[in-house]
């Protein structure tokens, strides 16, 4: 990889390291239930101390997602959310949210937007990078080059089933951080963290000096604390989306802010 300037995500992990702290990465689906709500929720996550936000682009066929995020995607699509509308709103959100935000998307909406246009627009509106969940490392050369040209981070996934060669390649083309999925399968809350994840973190350390984030199936403060003992950051997705589904309509963004505060600082147990 050619040398690159420091991104907002790099700075975020540098600050965390300086404080000897670990990162909390929070996922929500844009447009769930509306784009107005997303504006409120992003501000709430920012106040609650989320270190990085993954903003999901809703897709008609969210293959990698379990039922909770599938439902969020359906709500967002019902309210007319598209990648164009998300990027249109972004500058307004950026007025009150300084947390790094990466777009979590399937590839087809980006492809139809136009890869160059997408990267140029995302950079211009203040997004920090993207994770394209169904783009395999082997097919990603052009995408990675275009994103780099716009100083956007590219996050790829490593799985417990990945071979060493695959893990190395995915880490090499990642920037900002490297995302390890705790178990094979789709997104969703689980009562226990898979035992396959700690060896995966150790394996990934051999291939990269990037911060390592662990996600898929992490839903409680106790699980976040557990992940923090061996990784640099924990990603909580479905549990936050579940809270948005259950509590946002009646209690508003404050309930979600409270939930994320607990994830960020809550005690073990």
């Amino acid at each position, binding site marked *: 990889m050619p040398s690159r300037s420091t991104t907002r995500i790099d700075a975020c992990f540098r600050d965390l390291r300086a404080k000897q702290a670990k990162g909390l990465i929070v996922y929500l689906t844009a447009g769930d239930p509306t784009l107005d709500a997303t504006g409120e929720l992003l501000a709430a996550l920012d106040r609650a101390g989320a270190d990085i936000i993954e903003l999901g682009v809703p*897709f*008609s*066929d*969210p*293959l*990698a997602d*379990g039922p909770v995020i*599938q439902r969020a995607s*359906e709500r967002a*699509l019902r309210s007319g959310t*598209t*990648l*164009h509308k998300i990027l249109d709103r972004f500058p307004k959100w950026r007025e009150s949210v300084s947390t790094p935000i990466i777009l979590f998307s*399937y*590839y*087809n*909406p*980006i*492809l*139809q*937007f136009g890869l160059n246009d997408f990267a140029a627009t995302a950079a211009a509106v203040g997004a920090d990078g993207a994770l394209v969940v*169904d783009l*395999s*490392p082997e097919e990603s050369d052009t995408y990675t080059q275009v994103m780099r040209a716009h100083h956007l981070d590219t996050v790829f996934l490593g*799985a417990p*089933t*990945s*071979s060493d060669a*695959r893990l190395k390649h995915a880490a090499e083309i990642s920037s900002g951080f490297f995302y390890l999925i705790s178990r*094979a*399968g*789709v997104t969703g809350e689980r009562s226990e963290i898979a035992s396959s994840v700690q060896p995966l973190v150790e394996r990934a350390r051999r291939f990269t000096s990037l911060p390592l984030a662990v996600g898929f199936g992490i839903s409680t403060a106790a699980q976040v604390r557990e992940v923090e003992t061996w990784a640099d950051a924990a990603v909580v997705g479905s549990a936050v989306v579940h809270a948005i589904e259950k509590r946002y309509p009646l209690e508003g963004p404050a309930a979600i802010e409270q939930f994320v505060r607990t994830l960020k600082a809550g005690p073990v147990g």
Partner: protein
Amino acid sequence: MHPLEELEAAYQEARRDPAFLAELEDLLTNYAGRPTPLTHARRLGQHLGGAQVYLKREDLLHTGAHKINNCLGQGLLAKRMGKTRLVAETGAGQHGVATATVAALLGMECVVYMGSEDMARQSPNVFRMRMLGSKVVPVDSGTKTLKDAINEGMRDWVTNVQNTHYLMGSALGPHPYPMIVRDFQKIIGEETRRQMLKVAGRLPDMLCACVGGGSNSIGLFYDFIPNLSVKMVGVEAGGRSLRLGEHAARFAGGRPGVLHGAYTYVLQTEDGLISNTHSVSAGLDYAAVGPEHSALYRQGRVEYTHVSDAEALAAAQQLCKLEGIIPALESSHALAEVAKRAPRMSPDQIIVVNLSGRGDKDLGIFQSAGVL
């Protein structure tokens, strides 16, 4: 991604293993019923008044469609990989029935995902799968049809990959599936070539097959691709109209995109969301086409066209009355196109149609369409 690498490695090994190929050939011959006949549809030809029409009788295979060719191949491959569980998607139910059949034959557990709308319109096949010991899981997400069943099947597979093989039913999805499915289906074209040379002493002038995901069509076409004198026509589902959401004619209304791990022609909105589709035939009701068909389209080697629901229903009735064969509604799309083309050709020309499945499963649809 790792599961795809594992699958490709196992397949590359299996296809060079004489024991694997011998076991598959034995099952195709003595269990599935290959080779299938090539029937000269004399009365249909006379009625249309032009080219001679031959039917490649995949409808006569065990389970009633070409799907069993691929299921036997992938079933043996899964077993060889040490998998004990098969998952599959199904639209019309033909692939689900074939997978359930092979699972029973090989002593494997089987779960078939099927859109709830498809379960309602193809209920005989749901009962057949259950009789065969498979679990049929209704899929209520999205459009409740084939693409949503594929989503669920893939989610199951990536979650349970250690003991599970995803038995993809059509020549679509991520590599290596389109290649594997085509290889297990190309026997249709290879047999057709031998049979045609035997009865007519020459190759046919035209091949015609319906295209959903595209497995029966690539199966018929593949062996003939180098023979440029053989014209090939793929027939998509024109549905009710060519308005987005009312049909499944990807080459008429789609553009390149990514669905289910394949870059191919896809029916989609401007924003890249996968569109709803419609066809009277559940097996053609899918928003993307197998990627090899997109390549053949771009090369101009295969001509792709579409016929409407009404034309397919009429073609099915015609075959019943003239030849005593009840065709699947999928295959009836190809028959409807032949009904348009044969009259414009001469009696010394030959068209081969892939009669990819039988129509027993569609009787309920014929009934609600007022045909019965």
